[in-house]
């Protein structure tokens, strides 16, 4: 009897599951096709802006949007690709979890006939994704560094806060900064530390760095959260006059620029890139091509006190 009971349970669960099956957007509910949107965790407003904009654009074009986050875990990303394939998504928009670790997932989707459109971060393989649209980190860094040089008056000692050193974008940005800054012999870097993109870590490391270098004139940070952390530490130490430049163009930093706490940042057009990726997916699904080369770099924009009012959430208003 017990065995019979177990079998009955299994059957009941199976029946339930199969009853749910057709409701999954197979060809989409009401004939609408699904676009899967996969990004890192939404606890960073940047990724939230990406996901929100991609989903909004997808719905405008008549698709269903399936939004998920991989939390920078390549394994979780792989599972999300599996469920996108299982749900018969027609395209995947992804801000991936690692340049090498993501190649297999993208290739798997391609084999299943689903094109992937990469945003924000590239993968180290060509011809696997239908498109790789990223913001031009190098151009943006050069832009930020030029503004930093201008603010510093081409001289003085400064501190650089680098992002997570294992991250490609951290390397590209610091390269972009130094290709400009190192041309000015009177600009002197007195400390360089990684704060792992983190506000708390930037705050603590800045507090310590100040102790050895009270005469610093500026801080250039690899992203906005570190710029915010550095700015809070400088303010607490009575060094509010030290210039701070960030990177990303987050709403918090734009507010800080308007308040005069931070002097400049470089806005990554996350919203535009996300919408562009959906547009190209639509183009691909309707005509068979994206109408653009695979690798595309979209230029960043400088935000400073003069134009801070013109920007919204990772986009021009």
């Amino acid at each position, binding site marked *: 009897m017990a065995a019979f009971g177990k079998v009955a349970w299994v059957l009941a669960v199976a029946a339930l599951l199969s009853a749910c099956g057709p409701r999954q957007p197979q060809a989409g509910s009401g004939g609408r096709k699904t676009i899967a949107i996969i990004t890192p*965790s*939404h*606890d*960073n*407003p940047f990724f*939230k802006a990406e996901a929100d904009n991609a989903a909004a654009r997808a719905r405008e074009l008549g698709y269903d949007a399936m939004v998920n986050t991989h939390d920078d875990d390549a394994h979780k990303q792989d599972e999300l690709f599996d469920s996108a394939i299982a749900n018969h998504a027609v395209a995947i928009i992804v801000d991936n979890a690692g340049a090498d670790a993501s190649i297999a997932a993208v290739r798997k989707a391609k084999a299943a006939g689903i094109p992937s459109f990469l945003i924000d971060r590239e993968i180290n393989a060509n011809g696997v994704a239908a498109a790789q649209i990223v913001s031009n980190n190098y151009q943006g860094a050069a832009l930020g560094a030029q503004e930093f040089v201008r603010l510093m008056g081409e001289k003085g000692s400064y501190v650089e806060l680098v992002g997570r*050193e294992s991250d490609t974008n951290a390397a590209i940005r610091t390269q972009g900064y130094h290709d400009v800054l190192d041309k000015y012999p009177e600009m002197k870097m007195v*400390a*360089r*530390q*990684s704060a*792992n993109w983190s*506000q*708390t870590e930037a*705050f*603590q*490391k800045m*507090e*310590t*760095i*100040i*102790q*050895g*270098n009270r005469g610093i004139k500026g801080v250039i940070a690899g992203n906005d*959260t570190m710029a*915010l*952390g550095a700015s*809070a530490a400088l303010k*607490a130490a009575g060094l509010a006059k030290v210039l701070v430049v960030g990177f990303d163009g987050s709403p*918090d930093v734009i*507010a800080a620029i308007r308040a005069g706490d931070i002097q400049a940042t470089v806005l990554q057009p996350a919203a535009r890139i996300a919408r562009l990726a959906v547009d190209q997916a639509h183009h691909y699904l309707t005509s068979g091509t994206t109408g653009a080369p695979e690798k595309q770099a979209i230029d960043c924009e400088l935000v400073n006190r003069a134009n801070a009012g013109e920007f919204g959430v990772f986009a021009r208003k």
Partner: protein
Amino acid sequence: MTATLFRLRALVALVALLVTFSCLSPAFLSAANLTILLKHVAINAIMAIGMTFVILSGGIDLSVGSIAGLAGMIAGGLIDHGLVLRPFGVVVYFQVWLVIAIALMGGALVGAINGLLVARLSVAPFIATLGTMYAARGAALLLSNGATFPNLAGRADLGNTGFPLLGEGTVPIWLMVAFGVAAALVAARTRFGRHVYAVGGNERAAQLSGVRVKRVKLLVYVISGICSGAVGLIVASQLVAAHPATGQSFELNAIAAVVLGGTSLMGGRGGIGGTIAGALVIGALADGLVLLGVSEFWQIVIKGIVIIVAVVLDQLQRRIQWQPSVK
């Protein structure tokens, strides 16, 4: 003599670090730098103080970092947006001391859940607190839908200014001193303190001699929750912003401080003084290496080696202590 040196190894290591760093960097031994150093230590030390009670009782608390994040977000939400009571159509803004109390109660509540899971439902502490680690982090993210509460300075017209004071200047250091003194007194001078050691040393024997083991276990997690909540509030106050990811991997630093301080992960042996010394070693190491401009990667490697050396010394110490009793 050797045994005493072993017992005070965290202090010995601390002195060695202080001497080394002050030789290598003139700024290290300045009053200003030591103040900053203590401020950074305070964050880890307060969390590690709560953790010490849990570990002394034979448990472990992995949820402390998430509790810190959650407490910060509770405070951030209450200051930025107030408590929205939809059915009545009103928004209540609390004064800052009340906000702090509510956030600490949030921490205590998660701690109580840990305690109930461990004491009443006999869930292994590692698993119970691993679960609440995820749940509390998720709750912190849900509170703001993942966003940061950007301005915790409060508004004068709402009467909720003053929150940044908690992390200002030397306040965190004095909080560490207060937590440390209170905890040391509780651990060494109260019945509850002796019971914590008893439960960690031999739970069965403690039970048989009339210790209310379940109550002791519940309370140690509540203490840990409150300490972690306080840490979350200090971090949020220093940044004048509450971020839901705050406190990630803090639990590992706290456990490292406790272990470095000579408290046994098996429970029953150790104390608050050692934990504070352990936190000082980790803090001095981190800040000193930053001041010297050492790469982040080396900082991590060195920290790992220090922890391993500490545990190896712990084993050696036990051997030294055992020898006389063997004879």
